């Protein structure tokens, strides 16, 4: 038993290692996306230009929510994500090459270039996301329902931002999932803002786990973007769902290191805020915890980091090397064949 496991016997260090690799991969993926998105958009920023045009919502700093939940899921569990979906997609095991090609608008992409960064669908990984706030929650309710109807112990997880918890779909879905005792988990990533609107100006309660009692479901709160605390809260929620004990809301305090979207002037937040958040980087925190546990040494961590980066680099190369779809392909796929 490592030092870490002595102190926290319920936590598997192997699983934390898996989380660490995912978080590093997500961080590096988003860093590369910042670069790719900027191409063709300088010196004058134009949202429609470059190899990756359109809106771009990145999850840098929000890695613990995705990694800490997905470490407990299998390929059979379903995940729905919102407009900021890369961290969820990566941790859920979405095909990274096809995902990146989709974001580059290529014919080898998950949706043959039709969907783009906010609309990634990988049925093999049981992953989907979308651009309408809160819309993925009822889809997860439906997946949970299907799992139950099929007699499986598979669960469904809807990831949302704290802003989405004020949409009707959140409240209707919770009532329905509780009423039908479905294996649903909603993870609310509180990154303090919905675009420019601070949580205090949008939400009538301090945190959304408090809303759990209104629907008769379980609630949990994860402070300080903490990967280990997220791991624990998620494990409990997943076990509850798998055992037929109904839905859970987990709210995690997380950090949005970047703008709402790339190009956001961020005039609504103090210039000191982001440096302060970056000083509490969850990846550095977990890295240090793993070293302190004497479970791994520095070279081993570097090897993990190199492996994650290689996978990401290969995905970007694949995307860049792929062809654009033929223009007429726009007319295909309105109906499936």
């Amino acid at each position, binding site marked *: 038993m490592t030092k870490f496991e002595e102190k926290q016997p319920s936590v598997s260090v192997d699983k934390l290692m898996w989380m660490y690799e995912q978080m590093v991969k997500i961080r590096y993926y988003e860093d590369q996306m910042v670069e790719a998105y900027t191409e063709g958009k300088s010196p004058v*920023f*134009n*949202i*429609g230009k470059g190899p990756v*045009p*359109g*809106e771009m919502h990145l999850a840098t700093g929000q890695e613990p929510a995705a990694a800490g939940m997905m470490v407990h899921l299998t390929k059979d569990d379903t995940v729905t994500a919102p407009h900021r979906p890369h961290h969820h997609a990566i941790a859920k095991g979405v095909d990274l090459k096809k995902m990146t090609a*989709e974001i580059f*608008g*290529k014919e080898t992409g998950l*949706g043959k*270039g*039709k*969907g*783009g960064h*906010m*609309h990634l669908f990988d049925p093999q990984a049981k992953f989907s996301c*979308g*651009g*309408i*706030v*809160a*819309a993925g929650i009822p889809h997860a309710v439906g997946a949970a329902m299907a799992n139950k109807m099929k007699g499986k112990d598979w669960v469904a997880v809807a990831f949302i931002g704290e*802003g*989405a918890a*004020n*949409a*009707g*779909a959140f409240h209707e879905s919770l009532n329905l999932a509780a009423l039908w005792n479905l294996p649903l988990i909603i993870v609310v990533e509180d990154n303090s803002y*919905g*675009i*420019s*609107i601070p949580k205090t*100006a*949008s*939400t009538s309660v301090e945190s959304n786990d408090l809303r759990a009692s209104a629907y008769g479901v379980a609630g949990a709160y994860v402070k300080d973007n903490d990967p280990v605390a997220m791991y624990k809260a998620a494990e409990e929620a997943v076990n509850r769902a798998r055992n037929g004990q109904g839905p859970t809301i987990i709210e995690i305090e997380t950090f949005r290191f970047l703008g709402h979207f790339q*190009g956001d002037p961020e*005039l*609504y937040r103090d210039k000191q805020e982001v440096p302060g958040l970056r000083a509490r980087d969850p990846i550095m925190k977990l890295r240090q915890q793993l070293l302190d546990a004497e479970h791994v040494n520095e070279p081993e961590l570097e090897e993990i980091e190199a492996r994650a980066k290689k996978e990401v680099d290969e995905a970007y190369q694949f995307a860049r090397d792929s062809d*654009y*779809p*033929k*223009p*007429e*392909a*726009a*007319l295909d796929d*309105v109906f499936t064949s």
Partner: protein
Amino acid sequence: METAKKRVLTGNKAMAEAIAQEMENDKNVFVLGEDIGKYGGIFGSTQGLMEKFGPERVLDTPISETAFIGAAIGAAAEGMRPIAELMFVDFFGVCMDQIYNHMAKIPYMSGGNVRLPMVLMTSVGGGYSDAAQHSQTLYATFAHMPGMKVVAPSTPYDLKGMMTSAIRDDNPVVFMFHKSLQGLGWMDQLDYAIGHVPEDSYIVPLDKANVMREGKDVTIVGIQMMTHYAMEAAERLAQDGIEAEVIDLRSLAPIDKDTILNSVKKTHRLVVVDEDYRSYGMTAEIAAIVSEEALYELESPIKRLAIPDVPIPYSHVLEDFVLPGPDKIVETVKQMMDEA
């Protein structure tokens, strides 16, 4: 005053100025929506209002469209004059019951006894790879339903004048502004997103199309970006000796039949260009009006250009393929003239 140079504004500043002037005139006017306060609206249509009027009359809302658009209806019924912003028209889905079943019907169902003097303003349009859930115009979806005036101005002058009219109108007005015509620093810099706007308040009617360019050979009816593309096409056609008359529709409901019919009676040819889906849309409506009321004036079949009944794709090669533009308009008009 000292200078003879005309004052110019971007589309979004023109809109925001109209709102500010009406807020000064009438204390019942207020604005609500997402990121409309300090941020000034994602597309800048409420810039400066928070600084001028404060959070009592400029209300940032949670992401709760059903609640705040429904609340605008309730406040309007009490005599307030709310302006609600739906950030992208594509988000209509989460609040359409309030719009279609309530805003559009309460005045009628009450036998005219309940007035809803409100404006629902919303951004429309694509062309910058924002994909299927952020690029639609949905002009016809709104214009189809009786009980709402639906306008879609194309110039800064009209954005201001029609916004002023919309706020003063005692009926619900859906005010659609095109993202590309707002003059935003982070999109394509288009000459027509900037234009002359008088400082003093003025109105532009909500039921009149505008003849942007006179011509004798063919009528091209457009709306918002399509109007500007039609103007570009008309310039190019003129070099080949074809004189196109370009009509900016401006108002979808009520629709200005007279301006269209008078033009067709002069040119005897009609092309309609839309940034909405083709079937059951604005192009079909105008084609039907002309078929019903001026069929025998036509020298060739009506042509329609619109999105070919597919969701707006993300990849720019695909989006370019489905969006009408100047090239397609020129090609269509030339084909039409050759066939004659």
